[in-house]
């Protein structure tokens, strides 16, 4: 009986996050009396966009069996430098390139430190979290926040709309989907996540793979920074401080295996981000207090981790790192 359950359970498991998302959408419709307005839809997309882009990029790192906890603060630094560039007259397009350059640059530093010095990614990015927070404080220097002055806000505000968000999320996701599912990059990521030893023995350069992975994720950081900048037009020392954890939650909600590897799914970032935003909005519309709402989300997260962890340990290969 147990074997039968496991057999069908494992077959159905990939569908669970999507089923959960559909269930949440039905509950959402119910809460809105089956009359969602354009505002409801816009709000969902507004709130999903930044996390979806970050999470989609982070899936590549997660697939390696690791996680970059400094993603959020890296985005904060990217936003900050983007604002500085814009205020110096770089224009919106210039600002976008600056955000991308900073996001990719920070990720490159992460990847080099990780691969060249052979530091565990999670531990190394924890150290980077502290460093980047300090960098953000210094860049903001002497102020509690850094703003785009109202007089020159107009060009940025023009990008603060639904279609820009959809375009950014759509294009980035499409590129990541192709890279992850149809190229060597994605296949090798899953192989390394499954077992670094096996990957190394089949000729995969783990150092090279780590650098490529971080570059893809860094592009997501830069794009997310641009989207955040168009929405908030400001940065403070707390910008992105909790985003790293939110991204981790989103990816797990989206059905990503905790160990990464062969069953990693590129859609996990978007599905998880959408699920989290829907849960959050449902709780808000039901009038659940912020404190209870946090408890509710934490319990849901634990429940998802519990389901995701079922039987995965038995299937894992040796994870000893061999260079």
């Amino acid at each position, binding site marked *: 009986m147990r074997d039968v359950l496991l057999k069908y359970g494992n077959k159905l498991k990939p569908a669970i996050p999507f089923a959960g998302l559909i269930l949440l959408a039905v509950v959402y419709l119910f809460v809105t009396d089956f009359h969602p307005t354009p505002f409801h839809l816009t*709000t969902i997309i507004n709130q999903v966009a930044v996390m979806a882009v970050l999470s989609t990029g982070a899936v590549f790192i997660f697939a390696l069996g690791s996680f970059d906890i400094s993603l959020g603060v890296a985005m904060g630094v990217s936003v900050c430098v983007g604002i500085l560039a814009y205020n110096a007259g770089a224009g919106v397009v210039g600002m976008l390139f600056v955000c991308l350059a900073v996001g990719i640059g920070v990720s490159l530093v992460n990847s080099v430190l990780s691969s060249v010095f052979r530091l565990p990614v999670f531990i190394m990015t924890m150290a980077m979290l502290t460093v980047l927070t300090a960098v953000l*404080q210094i860049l903001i220097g002497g102020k*509690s926040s850094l703003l785009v002055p109202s007089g020159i806000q107009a060009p940025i505000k023009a990008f603060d709309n639904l279609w820009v968000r959809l375009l950014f999320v759509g294009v980035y996701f499409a590129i990541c989907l192709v890279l992850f599912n149809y190229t060597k990059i994605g296949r090798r990521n899953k192989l390394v996540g499954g077992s670094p030893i096996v990957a190394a023995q089949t000729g995969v350069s783990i150092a090279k793979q780590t650098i490529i992975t971080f570059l893809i994720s860094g592009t997501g950081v830069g794009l997310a920074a641009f989207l955040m900048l168009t929405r*908030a037009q400001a940065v403070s020392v707390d910008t992105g401080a909790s985003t790293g954890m939110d991204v981790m939650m989103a990816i797990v909600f989206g059905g990503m295996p905790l160990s990464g590897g062969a069953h990693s799914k590129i859609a996990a970032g978007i599905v998880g981000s959408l699920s989290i935003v829907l849960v959050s909005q449902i709780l808000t519309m039901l*009038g659940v207090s912020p404190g209870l709402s946090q408890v509710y989300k934490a*319990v849901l997260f634990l429940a998802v981790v519990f389901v995701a962890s079922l039987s995965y340990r038995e299937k894992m290969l040796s994870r000893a790192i061999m260079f």
Partner: protein
Amino acid sequence: MKKKFSISRRIVAAVMASFIAMTTLSACSDDSDAPDQQTDKHYVIGVIPFNDTAAEQLDWNNYLTEYVAKNYNIEFKFATAPGDAESAVTVVEELKLAGAEAILGIVDYPAAIQKANELEMWYIRAGGLSTLSDYEQIKDLPYYLGTMGPSLDEEYQAGYDMIESYVKDGKKDILVFAAILGLYLPSDMHVFRFEGMRDALVAAGAVYTPPASGSVVEGPGVGEFASGTSGLNITTIYGYPIESIDSTFHDRFTQAVSGKTFDAVAMTAEGSQNVNTWLNGAGITGVVIGEVSSFNATAGEAFETGILGYVVGKYGSSMGPAVIALINALDGHADIMRNADGTGARLTAPFWAANSSADFAAKRAFDDNADPAFNKAIMDKYIVRLNPSVTRTSFIEFAGFSFDDLKALH
């Protein structure tokens, strides 16, 4: 062994499922503590706190839910305190989804206020004045009522009065703790409080030497004081006692107080309990501490135990005028608060101060939620719907009522 593990997992899963179901059901159920229907009109107002757990914020929340909601048929929707501008924008959207028509914000993120304006939600920033740079960004928004709180002059005076009180009491060895200053995180209010303290010390005869940078904002350091003709021994310490923000704070604090004795500590912010603990750790006891915080229960305990000797701050019902401004706006009378030129207003609301446990207790008792300082009898007079003779001038006076004004009206 495996089977036992599996069963325990099922039990955990069952408990989780029950918990989720119970939480959902409790969220769906009606709130039995509904507001009294004392007025015909029902309002839904969102509240954006500056901190979810700060004693000052909790006192404001209690006043809103325990007194205002019941007397004005208002449903308050409390958001989670946002950590940055983007989450503040999200919070505004969520409050709109929750049905809020207006927002009482204890935070000022221009992008969030712009979002509220876009969603046609009235926004008032209460509990403190927006900085001038933030205000300039948003003052023209038609749904921005303005900002209400102690002015920077009040902040300056709070620092000045604290030191003056110490000097009058004959305190000789004073530690000035300029919280936040000397770092990359100064805020206008802390700068002005420190400048008030500095000028009071100079007025007492001390000689001030500014930091090498020439500005307490740029840091590091906040400068030094020599006794001059004051007869005072003044020590300064700056920074922020949070490791992630100011990793050297505790070392500097220990170094600054080492081998010294103090009669009093003057703080530009709150945190008297922590400072007392650190002083005790350095073998220094019996020091009176003054802070800028609020008339909350924690400060009351600190007064009773002799840790606090002076406090200046806000109080629970100081949110009253801001709520009345929102009610007027929702009734179609936003002009009672907004400037004649169509911009959002900057209205001054004074601090309260106490220099003894009895004084503190009396003022806190005066602001009890059964009959708070800003009570219905006073506030009704400034609701245009109930009293059409209210003018913008009288509303500004109402927002600026001092403790003595309110005492006289009770």
